[in-house]
Structures are given as C-alpha cells and as structure tokens.
C-alpha cells in the first residue's frame, strides 16, 4: 500500500517537475502519511488551511476522509491521469491509503460582475458575463428557472481543456441542431481554445464575411435567445457567450430595445436597417452619380458638386478610396491605442480629414460628407464581424460603381442578394425572417413587439403564452 502511495507521489513530482507553483505537503497523523498537492497559483491557500489542513489535523480518525473534510466538491479519483486535470482546475489532491481524492479550493481569480461595455443598456439589466463560466451559468440560471434548461459540458483543447457549456431548453430548441453542434465541438482537435471568439471561428463559416454566430455578454439577451429556441455556448475564461443560429436581422438591433415602448423603438429599428444599406451604398452611389449618371443629381446640387470638385486633382474614385482607407486606419488606430491617446487621434483625424484635406485640395468637401455619413451609419453596429462585412461589401459596391456606374450598383445589389439568400446559418437560411418569411420573427427582430408565439422555423414549440 505504501509502495503504491509512493508511486503516485513520485508520479506527480515527476510530471510536475518544472512547475514551481506546485505545493507538496506530507502530513503524518496517527502514523498515517497524508500527501497533499496543489498549485498555489490556482488554489486559495486560506481555503487549503481552513478546510483541509485544519480538518485533517483536528480529527484523530481520518479513516473516513469524506466525513472529515466538509466540501461539496470532494471527488474520488480512480485514475492518476486525471490528477493533472483537477490540479489545474483549482483542486487540492489528497493521497491517502493509496487512494487519490480531489477537494475544490479554487482561488478567486476572476473579476466581479460588472456592467456590459460592448452592449450597454439604459433601462435593461446591468449585469454582464465575466471570465468565470460558473458565474455566467449562474447568471443565466437565475433568470431561467426551469429544469428544461440543459447544459451539456465538454472539454476542448489538448492543452487548455477548456470547459465548454452547450445550453439549450430541451422542449424548445431543435434537438437536431443541438446534436449537430455537440458533434462539431466534440470533433474539434486543437491545442487550445482560449476564448469564445476562437470557438466561433472554428464552428462558424469563415468563407462569408457575415457572421452566423452572435457574441453577447448580456445574460438577458442570452436567455431571450434560449427562449426563442436558439442554442447558447459558454466558454470558460470568456465573458462572451455564443448564440446560434444567428441571422442577419439579429445583428441590426440591440436587445435593449425590448425595454422601451415598441412604438418608440420601431422608428430606431427601421433607421438601423436603413443605416445598414446606406453604409454600404452611399460612397458607391456618389461615385456612380458623379461619374456616370449625373442625370440622377438635381441641377443645383450638380452645380455645387462640380464647383466643390473643381480643384481636386484625383478622379472621384481615387478620392473616395483615399478617404475610406484613411478612415479605416483611423478607426483601427483608435481601437488599438490606449484610451488616453484616443482624443489625440480624434483631433488628428478631424484635422486631416476635415479642413486640412479640403484646403490642400486633396479631397472635396462633399467627399468628406459622404465618408462621414458612411462611417456614422456604420458605427450603429457594434459587432466587429458585421462592420467587417459592411466594409467588404462597401468596397465591392464602390469598385463596381467606379467601373459601371449605377449599372454596377445594380449588379452589386444582385450579387449581395444572391450572397445573403444562399447563405446558411448552420442549416437555417441566413436571410430569415425575410426569406423564408416569418412575421413572428420579423415582429421580434426588425420590430420590437412582444408576441405570444415563437418562430416555427426555429422550433416546433411555438406557444410562448397568452399575451
């Protein structure tokens, strides 16, 4: 028995040879050796002292260690290969009588629950996810008090063994989707998943710029999605949850609209849809109408445009490309730089893009207006992927308009529609709820209206209640 115990101790010491944060304690009580291992970086020393060491030393009989240590997370490990997993998950390993036990004594490494920074809300709940998956799960379960809410746990990553929770409501969510996603996640063979974004890239479609998975840090949005029959994936160490399947309509409007009167928010919602298209089409329309289809511009405006452009040496398309690229660079540098530099970049940008550029004769004032409207309309969308998709399509529209005028824009629109309509979010149409048409979902996403039904496209359980 002693030999066996020593073998385990030797095994641990061997495996964790260079891990300097591994603490090993050997305690002798009543002539019985107890070996304790834990990683001091992941385990709370106080908890080890208070709940394990004190309990062991205060009890003369440690034959039944389950009774001695009062911990809800007291696990008997039947395989020494599992020691590594428990050690790295904040457990303390106790080796006694040739048996291995793991007791949870995690240190508080995560931050407290704070307000959402990416999806702020004026009137809705203020809490948002943190890096601790248990807390995140708790925030969801606090809202959805139903046994039908299931969370399927998987560990992904050869080295990271990241905990991934697949959440769904079993009497609402389409089980085929659940099985499909479970299978996809099971098949992931990678060294590590460090964030929800990495998982999003792996299971999402990377060929099309439009995202089919929505990232959110708002538990209320997650619960709403679950109630709509969607599936949610939580990834440990990530403050974002993945919502899938997501459609283009889901990215237009924030969930926070649900907390104000629908009649007031609907105007904003329609405005956002308009902004989406304006952001893509405005520079292209300007190029097409000033270079090919001047008849579309009213005469007084055409004369103004002509006057303003008179000193600019570049063709309008070059002017537009210069401005759009400078704006992209500014936006990127503003995002990357620390906050304290932000205002400096804004001033510099305003100077370069504003009066200086016009006075230098590099661009015309109207181009500044066009680019400004383009960027203001695109700033409505906070999701990076959707703004990326808008940017890509903006350049496609712009280039086709530069070569073919309004005809080019028409071709771009056809190309855009083909792309969106044929695109699948998992096995659902990305253009849902427009094609296939579903008024229930249209009311919920494009308009802010509470309905007593769920979309039959997403779930067979379509009754929400009686409103």
């Amino acid at each position: 028995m002693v030999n066996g115990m020593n073998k385990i101790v030797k095994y641990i010491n061997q495996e964790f040879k260079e891990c300097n944060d591994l603490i090993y304690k050997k305690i002798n009580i009543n002539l019985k050796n107890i070996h304790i291992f834990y990683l001091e970086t992941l385990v709370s020393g106080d908890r080890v002292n208070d709940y394990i060491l004190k309990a062991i030393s205060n009890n003369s009989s440690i034959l039944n260690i389950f009774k001695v240590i009062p911990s809800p997370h007291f696990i008997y490990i039947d395989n020494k290969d599992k020691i590594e997993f428990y050690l790295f998950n904040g457990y303390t390993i106790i080796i006694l009588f040739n048996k291995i036990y793991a007791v949870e004594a995690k240190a508080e490494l995560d931050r407290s629950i704070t307000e959402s920074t990416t999806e702020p809300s004026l009137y809705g709940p203020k809490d948002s996810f943190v890096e601790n998956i248990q807390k995140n799960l708790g925030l969801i379960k606090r809202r959805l008090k139903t046994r039908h809410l299931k969370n399927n746990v998987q560990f992904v990553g050869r080295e990271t063994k990241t905990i991934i929770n697949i959440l769904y409501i079993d009497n609402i969510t389409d089980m085929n989707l659940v099985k499909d996603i479970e299978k996809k996640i099971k098949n992931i063979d990678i060294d590590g998943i460090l964030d929800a974004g990495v998982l999003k890239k792996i299971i999402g479609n990377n060929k099309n710029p439009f995202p089919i998975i929505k990232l959110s840090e708002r538990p209320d949005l997650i619960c709403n999605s679950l109630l709509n029959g969607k599936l949610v994936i939580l990834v440990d160490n990530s403050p974002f949850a993945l919502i899938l399947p997501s459609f283009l309509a889901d990215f237009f409007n924030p969930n926070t609209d649900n907390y104000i009167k629908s009649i007031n928010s609907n105007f904003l919602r329609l405005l956002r849809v308009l902004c989406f298209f304006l952001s893509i089409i405005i520079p292209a329309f300007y190029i097409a109408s000033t270079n090919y289809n001047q008849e579309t511009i009213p005469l007084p405006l055409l004369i103004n445009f002509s006057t303003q452009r008179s000193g600019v040496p570049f063709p309008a398309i070059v002017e537009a490309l210069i401005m759009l690229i400078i704006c992209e660079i500014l936006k990127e540098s503003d995002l990357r730089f620390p906050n304290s530099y932000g205002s400096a970049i804004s001033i510099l940008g305003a100077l370069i893009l504003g009066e200086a550029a016009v006075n230098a004769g590099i661009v015309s004032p109207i181009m500044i207006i066009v680019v400004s409207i383009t960027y203001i309309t695109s700033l409505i969308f906070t999701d990076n992927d959707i703004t990326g998709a808008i940017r890509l399509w903006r350049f496609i529209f712009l280039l086709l308009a530069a070569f073919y005028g309004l005809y080019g824009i028409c071709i771009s629109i056809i190309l855009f529609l083909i792309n969106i309509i044929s695109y699948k979010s998992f096995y659902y149409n990305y253009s849902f709820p427009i094609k296939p048409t579903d008024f229930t979902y249209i009311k919920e996403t494009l308009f802010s209206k509470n309905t007593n039904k769920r979309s039959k496209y997403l779930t067979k359980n379509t009754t929400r209640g009686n409103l």
Partner: protein
Amino acid sequence: MKKTIILVLLCLFLGGCNTNYKSLNDLAIVSSIIVDKEDDNYVTYVELYKEEKSENKSKKVAYFIEGKGKNLKSALDNASLSVSKNLYFVHTNAVIFSKKVVEEDLEYLFNYFEKSIQLNTNYFILVTDDVKEIQKTKDDDNPILGEKVRGIITYSSNNGAITKYDFLQKLYNYVNPNIDIILNKLEVKDNKITIDEAYYFDKNKIAGTLDQNEIKYINLISNTNNEIFLNFNYNNCPYVIKVEQNKTKYDFKNNKIILNINIKANLDSIGNNMDLKKINTIEELNKHSAESIKNNIKTLINKLKSSNSDALGINDYIYRRFGEKKYNFYDNEIDVEVKVEITKKGLILNTIGGEYEKK
C-alpha cells in the same frame, strides 16, 4: 459561389450597357440652347453654367458660346470647340427656337431633338422673335436664361395663362396628325424676360398667336391646368373665379360636336358693389360666368377654325373615340355648354353663412 461570380462577370462584360465615364470636373453644364438660322446656316447659342468666385463667396452665373454649322449637329459641335469641357445637356432647362428657324425647319428641329440621346425630355420648348435681345438680356430676377424660363413656366403657369407642356408632351402632340401644337413665345419687355403669348400652329406653320386669356381657355378645355383664374365683369363689377375642378365632355349629336364643360370654382375676388349674402347674386354670377366662358370659347374655336389649326386636339379625341373621323373639328358645327357652380365664396364670406348655404 463560382456560378454567382461567373453570372456577375457575364452581366458586367456582356451586358452591353453603355457606361460613359464623365468626370464631374470635365462637364460644362448646359442651361439652355438657342437655335437660330443665318444665311442657310444654323446658329446655336449654348448657355453654360459657370462659377464666379469673389472673395469668400462663389456665385453661379452663365455665359453663352456660339457655333455655326450646316446642320444642328455641326452647329452644336462647333460651339463645343470653344470650351475645354464636355457639353453636358441632360439638365438643359429650355430650348429656344427663333421664329425664323421654326417657320422654315420645325420638322427638322423636332426630329433632331427627338433623336438626341444627350438631352433629357423634360426641358421646355419656346419660340422667340428676337434671339439677340433674349441672349443679351440679363434679368435681375434670375440672370440665367434657362432657369428663368423654367421658373416662369413651372410657377407662373399656376394662373393657367401658359402652356405647361415639356418637350416630350409637345413631341407627342407634334407627331400626332390630329393635334396642332402650341409653343410659348418668349420675349423681352422692359428689360425683363416674359411669356405673354403663345404661337399656335397649323401643322408645321405658325398660324397665329394666342393671348393669355385664350391660353387659359385652351388649358380649361384640355384639363391641363389645375388652377385657372378667369376674370369677368358683371354689371360694371369685376370679379375673378378660380377654377377648382373642371370636366370637359364631348357629345356628338345631329352633326354637332357639343362641348360640355362643368366647372366648380371659388370666388377669388370681387368688387365692392355686390352683396354676396343674397342667394340671387351667386346664381347670377354662376350664369354670367358660364355665359362668358361659353362666348370666349366659341370665339377661340372660331379663331382656330379660321386658321385651320386644331390646337385643342378635338380631332384627336374624335379619332380615339370612334376610331375614324366621323366628325371633324373643321367641318362640323361646335356647340358649347358650360355650367359653373361657385362652391365657395372665399374665406371670410363663407363664415357669415347667408341664404345661399341655407338653401
């Protein structure tokens, strides 16, 4: 996706869509064109927009360039030689023909402008007796001739004294063998550009001129103007009615063409010596207006008949209704029946009420 890209490329390269790149900097925007004829040569004066900068302000002005040629195309081409930009005709406001060129080559002019893809179709066509004077005059109201003309026709025609038709509608009338066209006459009075009269045509020839009053009745019969103001004098008391609604119907009985005109009007202004509280006054005004309109229309029809010009398009109506020329504007007697109903007596008088409303 490959199929989509192939489809798009096919649309782009085999679409056959003619796309002409025209940079805004290279355009000379045309406001109006004047066409004249000198010694068998066409002379065109093209009015171009220009920006005039003074200190911190820039002002929109216009100037004329001139070109001569054996035909209209070469005249315009020659005119374009004097500018370093492309002439851009799409936003042309007006095309003004001299009386001489209209008398000689109206068919050619319509043919040329009908086929010109450079121009839009919503410009106005006018005739002037004095090209030089028109070109020289810088109206204080708007010194740009094309804009001035468009402004007069678009806004001033609200009183019904100008024909509002643009080129496309004029062309429709011109190519229709059953309608004779009317073209507004542009002239200079007291150093101001105005449209007081219109030329009416017998096929391609000028048949005569119509004054503002006659144009109002043409607009009334053809229902082409929403608001027409008609001036009358009843027992030495002048009054004006504003036509709010009018319907013209044609009846054909006993070899007669009967024009039925039903008018609902407002009393726009009236002299002092008329008591509108009395029921008889309004009824008398209705009768007097109807009689006056009838007489004026009869006079107009006789004038048109004597000039052999069907500017009212009555023959066209007959052709469309019967499919053959069963009746003829020139040969059949035309009777006019007019009914006028003054429905409102103006804002203030209406609140008084009176016997007329209580009836």
